[in-house]
């Protein structure tokens, strides 16, 4: 089994996750998805797939994501048979798609993780009715202060809240797991932002299908050894 120690959220936010060095296939992912990716790899017995994650806080600086991905691919390319990218566009304005074309690697389709965790088709179908929704995943609910509250200066200037969120109506927690404590935390985030709360169980959506596809392709191509 590909059982790896669960990295701490603060570490995933600031530093990401190093590759273990085991396996022939590497997934480069966002630190905000590390737990979910490891869970999918384990559940599907994809022991030949290794994972490294970039710092999740790049979510707040999407202009820096493509450069960080390029550096990670260059750093790991010689060690692995194939590399895949567990990012969607994620605010890069097409930069990640262009980079993947240039480097010949695959990525997850869709605008962002909120979409592919729910499933891109389902997310797109709801989009027109949800443009006033602010989304949190499990990771972002746990790291709300690091990703939302402090970067927006709401710890120092709570009076700015409505400048940011006045046009939003509700916070939707796209839940990957069933965790009452996390649910309560996400509900509290909604209260702090002055928004209605809704929980939606998504599971792993298109993330799971992408990972299993990448794992299976590598398994077939290499006769399942390793």
């Amino acid at each position, binding site marked *: 089994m590909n059982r790896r120690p669960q990295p701490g959220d603060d570490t995933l936010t600031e530093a990401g996750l190093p590759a273990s060095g085991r396996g022939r296939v590497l997934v480069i992912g966002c630190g905000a998805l590390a737990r979910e990716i490891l869970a999918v790899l384990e559940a599907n017995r994809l022991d030949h797939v290794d994972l490294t994650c970039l710092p999740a806080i790049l979510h707040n600086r999407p202009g820096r994501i493509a450069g960080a991905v390029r550096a990670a691919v260059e750093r790991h390319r010689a060690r692995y048979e194939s590399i895949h990218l567990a990012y969607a*566009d994620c*605010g890069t*304005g097409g930069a990640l798609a262009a980079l993947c074309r240039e480097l010949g690697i695959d990525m997850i389709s869709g*605008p962002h993780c909120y979409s592919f965790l729910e499933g891109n088709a389902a997310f797109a179908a709801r*989009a*027109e009715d949800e*443009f*006033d929704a602010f989304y949190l995943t499990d990771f972002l609910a746990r790291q709300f202060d690091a990703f939302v509250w402090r*970067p*927006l*200066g*709401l710890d*120092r*200037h709570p009076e*700015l809240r409505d*400048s*940011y969120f006045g*046009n*939003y109506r509700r916070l939707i927690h796209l839940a990957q797991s069933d965790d009452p404590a996390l649910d309560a935390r996400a509900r509290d985030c909604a209260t702090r932002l002055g928004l209605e709360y809704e929980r939606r169980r998504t599971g792993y959506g298109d993330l799971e299908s992408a990972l299993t596809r990448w794992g299976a392709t590598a398994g077939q191509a290499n006769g399942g050894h390793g």
Partner: protein
Amino acid sequence: MANDAGEDDEIVLSELDDEALNLQMQDDLYDGLKEEIEEGVRILLERGWAPYDILTRVLVAGMQVVGDDFRDGILFVPEVLLAANAMKGGMAILRPLLAETGAPKMGKMVIGTVKGDIHDIGKNLVGMMMEGAGFEVIDLGINTEAESYIEALKREEADILGMSALLTTTMPYMKVVIDTMKEKGIREDYIVLVGGAPLNEEFGRAIGADAYCRDAAVAVETAKAFVSRKHNRMSAG
């Protein structure tokens, strides 16, 4: 830019001469001190400053520094919002006086965030800086449909359409608006400027906008350049 707390306690705005007060107000704007800005504006008005001079030489000049430092990664969104709120306080005092005192009018802009998008921080900053530069701004708010933009452009006899989007999923709607303008044969009657975090120049060109503006300062300069070109064409024709 900011003075330390000890100095702040000792500063009495009304005791500063004009030049020192201007500099202090620009510092206060940088620090997002709305009440100080409102007080400073009132003092300068009492001293006989023209509202337009207060707007351009103090508030816009101060916001220019804020914008530059935001672009250079020295300031971040919360600080820019606080500065903008402070400027808004000053503008609220000056706005009714500007028309009375014959401030120059650069042109009229209709601005709004596109359909399906509720993000308005960037759009509000552009609107404020355009107003500061002498443009009349008709703000349609958020979630704006093509018909609403077009109706407002005609009703207001505007020169410029400004569209904003923060999402990759909503920015294509800008093309819908421009294509609708083309269908109605009115595209060339207006200058179309677009902006928003996920956009770039290539996107602006691809959808048929006149220009992509990466920030509020660029929007102001671009609008000025296009309006003066339009006026030149009209006087030549």
